[in-house]
């Protein structure tokens, strides 16, 4: 990555692991629980958030010197809302069934705490290029967790990946199902997403003791 300076590279790489928005900052949990029952919506959600947060951060960063601080939240909301509507319309136009599946959760990107958080914490105080990197980095960190959770939940809950029956057919009893395996219905329910996220946090913190908070 010769393109980026060391400081810039940190902006992208830190949120992927040691400063991950979901597992370390514990933000954006709501959507992580709601749409990760399958892998495909998880990926679409990740891509949507990368777009919204990347572009939004640049826009806010460009306007940062002319936004009166008293109404900055409203300005931020308008920027996110605009971008989310774009994403929503694109999905409706080109991937209608997916947009049905994600239903309100695309709209709810507006309330995703990661986005407003990055606007407030980073874009308001940094230039557009660094804000762009920070936005993409955080959205990637969010997306990575979404995809990991979606992978396990779809594999164990429905026995499929992207809808392909990788473990065999549960109705006709082929593959693993022939020897008595059954899908874990709990995996499809939101509480299990919370537990999977919790396990990821557990693994991450036991590998890197510096992340464990003092109390």
């Amino acid at each position, binding site marked *: 990555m010769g393109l980026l300076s060391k400081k810039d590279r940190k902006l992208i790489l830190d949120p992927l692991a040691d400063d991950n928005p979901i597992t370390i900052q514990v933000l954006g949990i709501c959507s992580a629980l709601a749409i990760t029952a399958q892998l495909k919506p998880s990926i679409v959600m990740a891509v949507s958030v990368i777009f919204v947060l990347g572009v939004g951060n640049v826009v806010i960063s460009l306007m940062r010197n002319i936004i009166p601080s008293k109404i900055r939240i409203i300005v931020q909301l308008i920027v996110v809302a605009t971008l989310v509507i774009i994403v929503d319309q694109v999905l409706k136009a080109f991937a209608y069934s997916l947009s049905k599946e994600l239903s309100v959760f695309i709209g709810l990107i507006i309330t995703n705490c990661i986005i407003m958080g990055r606007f407030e914490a980073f874009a308001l105080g940094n230039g557009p290029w660094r804000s762009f990197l920070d936005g993409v980095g955080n959205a990637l960190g969010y997306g990575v967790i979404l995809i990991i959770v979606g992978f396990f939940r779809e594999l164990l809950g429905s026995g499929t990946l992207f809808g392909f029956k990788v473990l065999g057919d549960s109705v006709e009893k082929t593959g693993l199902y022939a020897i*008595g395996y059954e899908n874990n219905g709990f995996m499809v329910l939101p509480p299990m997403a919370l537990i999977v996220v919790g396990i990821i946090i557990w693994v991450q913190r036991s590998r890197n003791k510096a992340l464990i908070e003092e109390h």
Partner: protein
Amino acid sequence: MGLKQKLHTLKEKYKGTKMAPAFNALHTFLYLPNETTHSGSHIRVADDLKRTMNTVIMALLPCLILGMFNAGYQHHLQLGEIEAAANGFFSTNFWNWDNLVVGLWKVLPLVLISYGVGLAVEFLFAVIKGHEVEEGYLVTGMLVPLIVPIDIPLWMLTIAVIFGVVIGKEVFGGTGMNILNPALTIRAFLFFAYPTWMSGDKVWVHGDVAATAAGSPDAISGETILGNLAQNKDAGFEIMDMFYGFIPGSVGETSTLLILLGGLFLIFTKIGSWRIMTSAVAGALVMGLIFNGVVSQEWISESSKFFSLMSTEFWHHLLLGGLAFGIVFMATDPVTASQTNKGKWIYGFLIGFISVMIRVFNPAYPEGVMLAILLMNVFAPTIDHYVVNGNIKRRMKRLKVKTA
């Protein structure tokens, strides 16, 4: 050199190594440890954690044994091979060798899996975390086989036990630190993960699932009483059969009689809290009376889907399903229950109250007692907090009156 001496030597040999907790656990399980504490005050009592756990297990054993006989009895009864037990509790149709063989064959693997897997996880965590193995799993391991349906596949039980011990207990810090009752966590996991094996009319009697899958024309159906009532059918069983436990259900929770004896034993030995048990029974009765009142006021019609369950006489609820078992053996778990005396009354009452409410209003979750206890487990610290604060406030007021 006797076994005891050998274990002593092994313990010295492995002292400070990673494997030490595993050896120590075996050693202290079999013998009294050969060491004393070094600091603080000393109180010599015989009832350590191990003694407490063993007492509960002793109270559970009758339920386990009856569960084995019942497994065979229900199986044979469904196949039409034997007559229904008729003359009282000691009916030979129930207590016979054929029934016990089926029971042993089906129930022992559940016990072995529960203990084997659960203790393996405990040992593993003790070795990784470098602390001593705690006795916490002794009771859980006995409770688990008693609260699952007889035909549950063993691999499902294995996964559930691992989940329950790791997520329900170890992540919170092990024995004594858990928020939720581990045995109920295991059951709840099974209930939500594999609902087809945990509820419905096919799972409660050994052989039903296989018979249905084979499509045999005389596929047998072992609906539980709660299941029957939820569909507005008759209970289909005699009251005394319910009391003795000659009814389909999870392995060890059918016999209210033996649970009652176990409960009295726990109260007598001061292991189980009589406050929780009494108030939970009271809670269930009050909710049952309210529902009976609704029926007798004719606020709901006979066509209502709640009618059958609501019009069940209020005290029958104590005999049905896992309510009695849950109240005596699960709600009284000292770790997850309320700690204050007043808190125990509230905690117990709400368990009984909510159990019957869930049972009647949501026929999809007939085992309301599991959900009610888990819910109250979560609220137990809150209840304690307010009881303690209330007490502080009251005494502060008294102090002010005195000094003023």
